[in-house]
């Protein structure tokens, strides 16, 4: 099947995201934008994944369970799982490894853990965008070993991307690379390229997505779909990505 995917969305748990970003709101917006499969990827923490899981099940929305981890060098990396438990386990490891700076909500924003019904259950203490103690190299390998798709975020952005933080893109077995600009950077030639919304407010959901041909939304099938996407890119020189809600 042909499917529109967006595997980079933040909930209210991310300090920089709007408090309106509850899992239910995210799912409703994603459906309205015509997306077929989405992932929740908060900075450094997976504690809103259970509510996201429930919201997706309730709405019949296909989903992946993710995290946007920050490496020691402050490179952002999307790690995506097709079931909740391994994602929560991986998320716990990432959170534990974040350097211990407490959040100052008045400066950085609140970090609420919420229930499916949008009740605040707790607040996460450590500031979630802070670097972990895990190097970029180790993070990529750990994610792949845990069975996740590993996609470095916004590699062409002037901050928090692999190229801006490291000065170059190390040759590692990424599942794909997330690119923001229309032009694919020359460093990305070797890998499949995807474009996701990186939504922090509801209106941003659907602003960028990627179209894939996949048998299902299992990691195994998505891995194959991304490889196919990379081969098509090499043939046509174009990525199968789009802007706008309705394509």
């Amino acid at each position, binding site marked *: 099947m042909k499917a529109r995917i967006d595997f980079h969305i933040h909930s209210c748990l991310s300090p920089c995201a709007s408090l309106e970003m509850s899992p239910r709101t995210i799912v409703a917006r994603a459906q309205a934008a015509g997306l077929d499969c989405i992932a929740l990827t908060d900075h450094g923490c997976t504690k809103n994944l259970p509510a996201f899981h429930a919201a997706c099940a309730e709405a019949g929305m296909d989903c992946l369970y993710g995290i946007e981890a920050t490496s020691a060098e402050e490179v952002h990396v999307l790690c995506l799982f097709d079931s909740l438990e391994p994602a929560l386990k991986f998320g716990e490891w990432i959170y534990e490894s974040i350097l211990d700076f407490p959040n100052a909500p008045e*400066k950085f924003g609140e970090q609420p853990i919420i229930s499916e019904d949008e009740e605040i259950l707790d607040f996460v203490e450590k500031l979630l*965008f*802070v*670097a972990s103690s895990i190097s970029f190299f180790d993070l990529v390998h750990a994610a792949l070993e845990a069975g996740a798709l590993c996609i470095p975020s916004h590699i062409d952005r002037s901050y928090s991307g692999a190229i801006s933080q490291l000065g170059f893109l190390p040759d590692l077995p990424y599942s794909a690379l997330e690119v923001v600009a229309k032009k694919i950077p020359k460093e990305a030639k070797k890998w499949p390229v995807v474009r996701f919304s990186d939504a922090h407010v509801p209106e941003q959901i659907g602003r960028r997505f990627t179209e894939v041909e996949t048998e299902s939304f299992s990691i195994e099938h998505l891995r194959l779909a991304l490889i196919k996407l990379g081969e098509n890119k090499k043939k046509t020189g174009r990525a199968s990505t789009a802007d706008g809600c309705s394509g």
Partner: protein
Amino acid sequence: MKISELHNLGFTCLQDQFNDGELAGGYTSDLLSDVMANLGEREVLITIQAHRNTIAVASLAGASAIVFCHGRTVDADVAEVAAKEGIALFGTSENQFTTTCKIAAALR
């Protein structure tokens, strides 16, 4: 040296809503976790990290100003947050090394 005197060193003021005062020193780093641990009160931060979190980190440290190097510019929303926090923003096409040298000499 006063915050406003950064302009005299050839840096372009990108955000001028701040109370002028003496700078206590400076810190140069592009790793925000390092900045969080080491930037001091009333200091100037010299960096290429031109985004929102940098302002929040500087504000938390009680820093007075930020100089963005290598021609990095800030979006309007970033300048707005800095204005709210009263942190002066400057920009320069020079790199972090040259910028640091200039400020260090002026602070002596």
